[in-house]
């Protein structure tokens, strides 16, 4: 009797589609990943049911639980030109190298006269430095200056982009800079209010308060 011959199946299967998919996903995640530079301050934001997403173009003031203020502008070009203006105001000259480094940084929480040293540090050293916060006294209101110049430079930047787009015959979509406040839930409300007062003195009344999304209880 002839032996029943089992069909010889090839034990190695074609992995090509799987590998294709894997690489596609790798590419996707690599391109969408944004470099996140570590913030100098941990802010534990309170939660709310609001599901609005923070716009991309923001001027952000973070307030930690002790009421120290930190400043950030999301657009790197605006950051650099704001630094320029601040330098002019305080008679501090920043080199191109320093400006470039500043453009890649995140929130800063040091007074302007300490900023040069702070920019020099690398990321891991910066982690160890305890930021004293930006001075907000009425005598030395550096946060107010940062906000003022940031706003002017953002408007200039938008104007420049608009002119460029118009000269190329393209449509320009203006996205105004928003003012965001990211305060720690445990910060005293008075400290937050003082910072809001700095904004309202500059005729800025509309804010985005950053919160965590909370699942509503049913």
């Amino acid at each position, binding site marked *: 009797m002839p032996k029943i011959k089992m069909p010889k199946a090839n034990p190695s299967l074609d992995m090509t589609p799987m590998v294709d998919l894997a690489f596609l996903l*790798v590419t996707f995640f690599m391109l969408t990943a944004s470099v996140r530079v570590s913030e100098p301050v941990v802010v534990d934001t309170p939660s709310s049911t609001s599901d609005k997403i923070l716009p991309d173009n923001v001027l952000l003031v973070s307030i930690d639980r002790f009421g120290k203020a930190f400043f950030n502008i999301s657009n790197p070009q605006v950051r650099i030109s704001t630094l320029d203006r601040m330098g002019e105001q305080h008679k501090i000259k920043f080199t191109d190298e320093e400006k470039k480094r500043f453009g890649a940084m995140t929130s800063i929480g040091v007074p302007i006269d300490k900023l040069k040293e702070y920019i020099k540090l690398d990321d891991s050293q910066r982690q160890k430095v305890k930021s004293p916060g930006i001075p907000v006294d009425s005598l030395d209101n550096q946060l107010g200056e940062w906000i003022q110049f940031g706003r002017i430079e953002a408007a200039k930047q938008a104007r420049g982009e608009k002119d460029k787009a118009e000269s190329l015959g393209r449509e320009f979509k203006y996205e105004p800079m928003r003012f965001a406040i990211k305060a720690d839930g445990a910060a005293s409300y008075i400290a937050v209010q003082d910072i809001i007062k700095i904004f*309202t003195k500059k005729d800025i009344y509309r804010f985005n308060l950053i919160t965590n999304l909370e699942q509503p209880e049913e």
Partner: protein
Amino acid sequence: MAEVNTGDGGGGHGKHDKKRAKKLSTRIDMTPMVDLAFLLLTFFVMTSTFNKAKTMEINFPADEPDKEKQQKVNNALTFIMSKDNSIYYYYGEFFPANNKNGKPATELTKTDFSKDGLHKLLLDKNKGTVEAINKLSEQLKIREIADTTYKRLAVNAKGDKTALTVLIKADDKAVYKNVIDLIDELNVCQVGKYAVVDMMPAEFELVTAAGTK
């Protein structure tokens, strides 16, 4: 596509060649590459953050030139936040003790962030608006009105003259979280008119007295 040349594929070309190259396996072992690809994939999946920060949009009132001047508001509820997450409130206008009008002095009532506290109070005080909006969403559900109409009408209902107006005040012992929680609760309870304002000295005295009691 990504198929590697196999033996017979290469053989097709070399049909007319006299000299046949030594047959080498053209199949490369792709396992290390695939391993690496998956490693990277896992890394990026783990590190990527999809959720962008959420925000709450709010307008703050401009500084008034005359702080002592009280604004006349209909149907106003004033919340005063104080230490240990406590909330005090009073309804209507504020009357200090021994005022000229001869009205009884305002007394603060204490409440908290629980469901039976703040939530219930707000729903009760804001009954008209909540009912109007519930009615609108019913209509939306059965497609009687379009969603744009719904949005417009809901905004109108919230901004109505008779709708509740809430004033939020905080003393120096209140934390930021309290204020956010309160604003959030207002949004949940369909209160459209609210403002964060400074406290009057008389109110501050009342709160301090209530806190030490």
